[in-house]
Structures are given as structure tokens and as C-alpha cells.
């Protein structure tokens, strides 16, 4: 079984991503959407949340939400893949279950 986890909160405001990473089994995928995309930026004092977990989990970020917020793909943490809504749907299909961390 594999789970696609979605996280829509900035890790600078809420601990949702920390909870997801703590409770996600190895091999799962994490998609950052909405304000969750702020957590994907490198060089912040919370970037370590993803840096420390990216060996066990695959991280994705929703491109349209990055663009909407004026964030640059160049500054994403290494290893995070940018996908669009089509890619979101594909991840839903390729995993067995979707778990939204609200």
C-alpha cells in the first residue's frame, strides 16, 4: 500500500507538515498544496522538516500554487518535484489512498 498525503498549511504557521512526516510510512508521497507550498522553499528555518524526511518520502509541490504566491521554482528544496493539477490526479491514481492533513 502507498499513501499520497496532501498538506495545505505553511510549516511556518502550523505543525501540519510535521504531523504528516511523523505519521507517514516510509515510501509515501507528500504533495504540498495551497499555503503548504511555502514549506517547500529552501533556506528557511523550517526547511529542515523536508530536508530530514526526503530520504523516506517523495515530495511534490503544486506548481500553480507556487506561481500564484510569487515563489520561484529555483528556490525549492532540492528533490521536490513540481507538478500541475494533472500530476495531482496522476499521483492520486498511482497511490492506493489519499490522506489530507487538514
Amino acid at each position, binding site marked *: 500500500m502507498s499513501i499520497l498525503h496532501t498538506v*495545505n498549511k505553511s510549516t511556518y504557521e502550523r505543525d501540519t507538515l510535521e504531523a504528516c512526516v511523523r505519521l507517514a510510512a516510509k515510501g509515501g508521497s507528500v504533495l504540498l*498544496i495551497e*499555503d503548504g507550498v511555502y514549506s517547500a522553499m529552501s533556506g528557511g528555518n523550517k526547511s529542515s522538516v523536508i530536508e530530514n524526511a526526503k530520504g523516506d518520502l517523495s515530495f511534490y509541490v503544486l506548481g500553480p*500554487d507556487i506561481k500564484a504566491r510569487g515563489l520561484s521554482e529555483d528556490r525549492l528544496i532540492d528533490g521536490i518535484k513540481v507538478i*500541475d*493539477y*494533472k500530476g495531482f*490526479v496522476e499521483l*492520486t491514481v498511482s497511490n492506493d489512498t*489519499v490522506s489530507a492533513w487538514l
Partner: protein
Amino acid sequence: MKISIQVSEGPYNHEASVTAINYVKAALEAGHEIFRVFFYHDGVNNGTKFATPPQDDMNIQKTWSELAAAHNIDLVVCVAAAQRRGIVDQGEMERNKKDGMNIMDGFRISGLGQLIEAGIESDRLVVFGD
């Protein structure tokens, strides 16, 4: 693949409804079936026809309605959540003696069992909320 959606936040206050709409459009384009969209918590406010957003803003309720009409999608508003928040259809208007109704075309009000059934009947259930 058969996919169902739960929307747990109202339109405008939170991006959840818009993300759900974009997701549904992408899923349909990829050839998947949207079995049902279930609106819960403040998400029931996606189903009012009384909203008048500014011209240059997205009309979220109308977008749902048009998607439903074009692709025959079952849009279900939770009755318990709707009663708390004043989303009313013909049946609810008569049952609870209200002097009007505000349900948007393409939406229907039904029970929480519809969410569980969507989970059982669909291959995936994707939740959008806060």
C-alpha cells in the same frame, strides 16, 4: 478510475473549493469519472445560489453548477451541515417552514451516508479542506 471528492470549507474564505474545482477538471480531462462531490462543514456554502461575487472574481458556486451540468456530476450538500448554515432546497423549505430556498442548480441536499457510500463505491476519496 472512479473518484469522489469531499469539500470541507466554504468558497472564498479558503482556497479548498478552488483547488477541488481545478482537481475535478483535471480528473475529467484525464478521463476519470467523478462519482460524487460531497460538501461538508462550511463547504455547504458552495451550494448557495444567492452569492454575487464581483465580475472580475471567480463565481465558485456557478462554476460547480456548470461542471455538474456539463459532466453529470452528483453534487451533494450534507443535510445536517446545511441546516446549521441555512442552505435550503424545496424539501427543506417545506419541512422546516422556511420562506425561501437558496440551493444552486445541480446541487442536492442529502445525508452523511452519501459520503460513506462515495467512499465505498469509489476507487479514491480526495478531501479538500482547512
